[in-house]
């Protein structure tokens, strides 16, 4: 057995591995969203698997071909990047083009009117350098171990650089927000004082003319 066939076997089996990952339960009509705050040009891979509750056995059916999952990904400007219905098991990948909070929402495409039965969703979200599959890389590019390690270090450093850039952008936004609050508070206090003075003067003038009209003054 040569090295690369073993790697391919490991790669294939690692695809099955995530089914033992984290899972949670949702209702059939329920919608669940996860937020990923990422810099731009970052790869995100979402692996999920859905199982339907089987009332006969009291457990979850390991493969439920009938259900589909609607997956929707929104970018920080609330624009939809991805909106598709996938089968009960899926692998979604997208790349961010603007830095910020991306929202990944999933809900089943069941047509039930009320909450229906429970679904078990296995989920795995990998971002940036975690999204790179090194087994794949080693196979495609025939790298030695040290070269693979250097490749991994390069990917990590790239991720760090992107995150630092994003941090600078966030800090700028924070500063803008603080300055905006500062100027709003200043404007409001000036406006309020002006309004008070103007209204007070108007009040007195109005009352004076009112009393004169009533012949009390």
């Amino acid at each position, binding site marked *: *057995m040569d090295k690369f066939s073993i*790697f391919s076997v*490991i790669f294939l*089996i*690692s695809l099955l*591995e*995530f*089914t*033992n*990952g*984290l*899972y*949670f*339960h949702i209702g059939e009509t329920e919608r669940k*969203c*996860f*937020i990923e*705050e990422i810099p731009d040009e970052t790869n995100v891979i979402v692996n999920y698997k859905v199982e339907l509750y089987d009332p006969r056995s009291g457990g979850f059916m390991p493969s439920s071909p009938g259900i589909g999952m609607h997956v929707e990904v929104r970018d920080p400007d609330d624009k939809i990047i991805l909106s598709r219905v996938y089968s009960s098991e899926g692998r979604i990948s997208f790349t961010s083009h603007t830095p910020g909070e991306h929202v990944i929402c999933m809900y089943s495409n069941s047509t039930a009117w009320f909450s229906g039965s429970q679904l078990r969703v296995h*989920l*795995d*979200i990998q971002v940036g*350098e*975690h999204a790179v599959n*090194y*087994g794949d890389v*080693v196979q495609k590019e025939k790298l030695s*171990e*040290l070269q*693979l*390690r*250097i490749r*991994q*270090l390069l990917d*990590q*450093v790239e991720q*760090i650089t992107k*995150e*630092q850039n994003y*941090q600078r952008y*966030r*800090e700028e*936004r*924070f500063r803008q*927000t603080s300055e*905006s*609050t500062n100027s*709003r*508070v200043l404007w*409001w206090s000036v*406006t*309020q004082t002006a*309004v*008070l003075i103007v*209204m007070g003067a108007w*009040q007195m003038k*109005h*009352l004076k003319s*009112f*009393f004169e009209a*009533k012949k009390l003054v």
Partner: protein
Amino acid sequence: MASLYSASTAIIYLTTVVLLLIGSVSCTELTFELPDSAKECFHQEIQKNTSVTLEFQVVTGGQYDVDVILEDPKKSVIYKQVKMQFDSHTFTAQHTGVYIICFSNEFSTFSHKLVYMDLQVGEEQPLPGIGEHVTALTQMESSAQDIHKALVQILDFQTHHRLREAKGRKRAEDLNERVLLWSLMETAFMFSILLLQITVVKRFFADKKSSAPY
């Protein structure tokens, strides 16, 4: 000699395959919204004697606190925190089975929270090909490994920094909006009060005048 080498590498590959199959190594990071009076639970299958680290932080919402309960397969509570803002808990799994992590916002009636959670099960998976060394690592390889560990730590620090900064930034944005809203409301309120004053005073004098002659 060659057959011994290939036999040992075959054994090591098989072990890796088996480990992958039983899912003893994983790292999951999730940020989700916890609505008010809600409880969200996550389940994870963990093997015995695996070192597990759970980390969470509340990013936005209310007093930035959440209840956390971690249960083992025997339904006994390993870790419980009430109204905690952020924490990190490391433990070794005593039993093989499904562990349940629950985040509860049931004590809050109107503030929904944004919670970041990081679950690290087992040690980090080694790069394919690195794990099956029969000889010791060369200096180059071991210093590359050290660099890798340091970079992993840097990325971890960056994540924590991002979460703390997000907390401050969202609070500032919230404050900005509230200042605008309040100043507009206050101005409108003030106008109506001043007009009301005039109307009421005029009404006093109007009544007095009409009841004067008898």
